[in-house]
């Protein structure tokens, strides 16, 4: 309740419209607030401080902005809208249903999917094009949703991948609480910390956890939960040398091991949901059509 209130307050302050289908033109929405970013940087990098949802969303915005800076959104409104809707439906079945979830397809041939703190989720065009059903898409999005629900990225930051950066940022904050120059420097450090985590990947145990949660979130949302394992089987046939897969393979356990772990955790427990829809034709239609 408190976090929902905080989010509402945040949305109000930034001028996010109540109806999300009516996008705001105001650039003010994403304006960098120097002081706040410094505060966020400081609390995020102190393992003892619990960062609140407002800070998490702000951090996530920077992270997501960096990602779309690396690869822009695919210019296909109907596909973007479709992925957003599937994603939002899944997220409603997570433990953070009221987060300002956003989903996008990145215009990149690489095969990968990403989450940032605060509920920004991305899948690449390369991965979208290889999947064969909405249930597979749902499995991948649900895996990413699980990372956000469990705040795995914040954990990675606080575990020290970033401690030096954090110390630097914190000392700058304390030294001079001034305007842009410091904020720009802090912003740079934050961004490089985010990049570091993207290149190194999350804790392997967190990837396995996201797999276990992903199949369940898909089942809760009414999908055949075996979409995610089907994607892992597909990845398992591909070469780690495939340049489009390099980052995914370097930052995740091998797909075969993820399948083994999922099998041991699942057993027959999800069988009763296995006849839920896969929705292959709507997926193919939306992916191919305009």
């Amino acid at each position, binding site marked *: 309740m408190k976090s929902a209130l905080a989010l509402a307050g945040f949305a109000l302050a930034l001028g996010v419209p109540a109806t999300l289908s009516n996008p705001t033109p105001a650039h003010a929405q994403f304006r960098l607030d120097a002081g706040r970013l410094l505060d966020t940087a400081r609390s995020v990098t102190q393992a003892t401080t619990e960062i609140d949802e407002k800070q998490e969303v702000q951090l996530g915005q920077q992270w997501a902005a960096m990602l779309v800076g690396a690869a822009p959104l695919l*210019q296909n409104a109907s596909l973007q809208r479709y992925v957003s809707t599937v994603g939002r439906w899944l997220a409603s079945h997570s433990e953070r249903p009221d987060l300002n979830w956003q989903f*996008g397809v990145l215009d990149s041939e690489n095969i990968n999917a990403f989450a940032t703190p605060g509920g920004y989720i991305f899948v690449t065009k390369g991965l979208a094009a290889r999947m064969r059903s909405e249930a597979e898409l749902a499995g991948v999005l649900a895996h990413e949703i699980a990372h956000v629900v469990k705040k795995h990225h914040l954990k990675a930051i606080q575990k020290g991948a970033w401690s030096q950066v954090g110390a630097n940022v914190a000392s700058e904050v304390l030294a001079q609480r001034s305007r842009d120059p410091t904020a720009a420097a802090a912003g740079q450090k934050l961004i490089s910390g985010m990049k570091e985590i993207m290149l190194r990947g999350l804790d392997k145990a967190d990837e396995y956890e996201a797999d276990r949660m992903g199949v369940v979130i898909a089942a809760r949302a009414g999908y055949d939960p075996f979409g995610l394992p089907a994607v892992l089987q597909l990845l398992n046939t591909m070469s780690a040398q495939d340049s489009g897969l390099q980052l995914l393979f370097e930052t995740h356990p091998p797909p075969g091991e993820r399948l083994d772990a999922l099998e041991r955790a699942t057993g027959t427990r*999800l069988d009763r949901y296995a006849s839920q829809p896969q929705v292959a034709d709507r997926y193919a239609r939306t992916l191919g059509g305009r």
Partner: protein
Amino acid sequence: MRAVLGASLFFLSCGLAWAQAGYTIREVEMKREPFDDAATVAKLAEKTPIEITRRQGAWMEVKSGQAAGWIRMLSVRMGAAGEARSGSSGLGALFNIGRTGSSGATVTTGVRGLDKEQIRNAKPDLAELQKMQGYAASRQDAERFAAGEPRLASQRVEYLRPPKAPAAGPHDPFQQGGTQ
């Protein structure tokens, strides 16, 4: 446009009938129907090559020699046993779906992307991120979508517990070769 159509047809056919090569990762029972209590048609040894026709939920319909039936998908890996990850994916030529909106111009890729080097050099693009908000679906949008066809019915499902003691499973490489 034709490329777009071609790609969609390809993926459509992929979704409906695959006929892909695969192999078993352990000894499995092949069932007449996709249920545990269905009659057992055959027993397949570990690393038996199979031809996968389709997936239905937790099961895959497969052929192996003269035998045909269903085995659990998580007991299957795609590709040929022993060389599952050789070669490239072979799908590289299919990527023609990235055309930009009304102008119809083709996106020039290669400048930006998600390789490691490109992530290292990425600069935040807040304007691009703002576009994403325009595509966002509300919770109500999602509910309407799920109430459509096919209907996606919400379920209460508990999360799975982490499996106990990884590694030394039935397919531990050090236990291979032992007859039973």
